[in-house]
């Protein structure tokens, strides 16, 4: 049962009603359950943020690291315990902004980790400041005139090396989300799943959405599956791009 992977005694969670993180957690634990991943063979490393709190709700050894520092911790854990499945779950701000340098280099070193990035396009926990994944023009509390810059192109960033695994999905597309997580967990190297989800309280409302459901409906409308075998995902395309399933240093 995937519920065995959750600390139900700590529920209700700290997340706002309508937040996408709960969906993400249940989907991820379902996949883990299906694959037989639990406290005897896996560890979760999370960063700081609303998303980072997920680690504390999971019923296995977890490390809630400093803001941005999931990847150095996770890479070291994997080196010391090569048989452990090391899963990193964190927010987009945590992984790509303050942790951006680690992301570049941990990917370059092809550390055998699965990174699940909750891309809610904002710093949720701190109240909704813009971050590197905030779309140009989006109004947030720190960009009252709309975000001034293009967001990071994570796909291009991570496709720089000779081997990579990048998947883009959303919490609306649950079947696809589970497939992406499953394949990422099976990838014998650095795998990154970019999961769009809704932060209704500190982002969606300021963009005019009234409920989390409205944001999900928007994901359904906006995001489309990439054609089979696509080597690159276009804007708002969901899918998996990967290359060079080679042996990794600790595979």
């Amino acid at each position, binding site marked *: 049962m995937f519920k065995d992977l959750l600390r139900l005694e*700590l529920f209700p969670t700290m997340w706002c009603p309508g937040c996408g993180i709960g969906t993400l957690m249940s989907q991820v634990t379902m996949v883990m359950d299906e694959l037989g991943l639990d*406290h*005897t*063979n*896996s*560890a979760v*490393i999370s960063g*700081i943020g609303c998303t980072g709190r997920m*680690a*504390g709700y999971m*019923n*296995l*050894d*977890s*490390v*809630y*690291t*400093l803001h941005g*520092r999931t*990847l*150095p*911790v*996770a*890479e*070291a*854990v994997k*080196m*010391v*315990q090569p048989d*452990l499945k090391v899963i990193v779950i964190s927010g987009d701000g945590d992984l790509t902004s303050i942790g951006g*340098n*680690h992301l*570049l*280099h941990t990917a370059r070193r092809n550390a055998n980790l699965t990174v699940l990035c909750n891309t809610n396009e904002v710093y949720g926990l701190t109240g909704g400041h813009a971050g590197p994944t905030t779309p140009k023009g989006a109004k947030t509390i720190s960009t009252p005139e709309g975000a001034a810059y293009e967001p990071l192109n994570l796909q291009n960033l991570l496709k720089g090396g000779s081997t990579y695994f990048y998947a883009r999905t959303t919490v609306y597309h649950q079947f696809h989300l589970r497939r992406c997580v499953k394949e990422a967990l099976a990838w014998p190297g650095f795998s990154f799943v970019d999961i769009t989800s809704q932060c209704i309280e500190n982002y969606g409302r300021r963009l005019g959405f009234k409920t989390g459901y409205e944001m999900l409906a928007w994901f359904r409308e906006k995001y489309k599956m990439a054609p089979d075998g696509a080597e690159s995902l276009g804007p708002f395309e969901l899918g998996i791009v990967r290359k060079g399933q080679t042996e990794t240093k600790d595979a």
Partner: protein
Amino acid sequence: MLVQGNQAVFLGAVKAGATFFAGYPISPSSEILVLAAEHAARNSVFKLIQSEDEIGAVNAIMGASLAGAKSFTATSGPGFSLMQEAVGYGHQVEIPTVIVDVQRVGPATGMPTMPAQQDLLQAMHGSSGDYYPLVFYPNSVEECYRYTILAFNAAEESLSPVILLSDAFLGHLIETVDLEAIPVLYPPGIVWHEHNLDLDLVVPGGMAPLEIVSRQRPPLGTGQRAFTGLTHDWRGQQRTADAGVYREWLAGVKKRHQEIAGNYRFYEYIDHPTSDTLLIAFGIVSRVVRPLASRFAIFRPISMAPLLADELREYGRRFKNVVVVEANDGQYAQLVEWALRREVRRVPLLGGRMNIPLIEAELGRMGIGEGLSV
């Protein structure tokens, strides 16, 4: 045989059972990274990450420790500053590990790589919040080895990152040490990986053998624990708005650190039958002032934190003048003043220069030690 200070630190770490090093190059600490890389190349059990920066390195040693490895990193002032957030993290999460800071003149890039002792207060209070670190500062190549082992032991016992201070002179100092005979005892039942260590050091006559303290906590991946930098209760459950939980936790940690630090109070005292002046010096500066023992008493703290307040009072009260000679602008002197509750004299050796004439000139200006011949 001839051994360098940085090399002795590395050998001590391996002797203590370290199997993980992460670091980012910075003089004058880089030899330790290079030695670790060579060691990792020869021993598959020893893991190494040359990190993208010192923040990556220090967080990697935290992860490695949680995963069950004794881990360490080495850096110098600028890198040590980058590591500070994780020092507090290690205290909050209770992670045993060792951080070596081979000091150079700062602030910022400063004078690479002239020696200094300017990271003393940073080593004690560089991270946010209240925490009670153990900090050691050896003064010879042999001591670099010995106190690295003790730093690993203190880390295991206190469940916290322990800081080993060194400096550009000490790190690059090459001394003849007898490497055959320091008895190092491993606890029974521990299986040690073959490290092909061909070096060993000697305990000076009469000193007890160093007993290696082994890891107590089961490694990551064997339980259902939440290791968190948030204030938490004993179950690892976050308690971020409860002053009672916080106070109880901090008081417990403080008490435990004080008790453990009680077993790690290291210092040296050289008496002088007639002098009215006590010189206080540590690390490489204590080697520089050593010839002045013919004219003054000398107190050398090796355990820099927690402060050896009782010992400072015990020896300090016997002397009319207390003079702290250190390669910074009075960082230890202000702590000594607090401990003694009286003014002490300062001889700051700044800019990487330290020698007897410089110190004598300063003492002369204070009217200390005049009329006494060396």
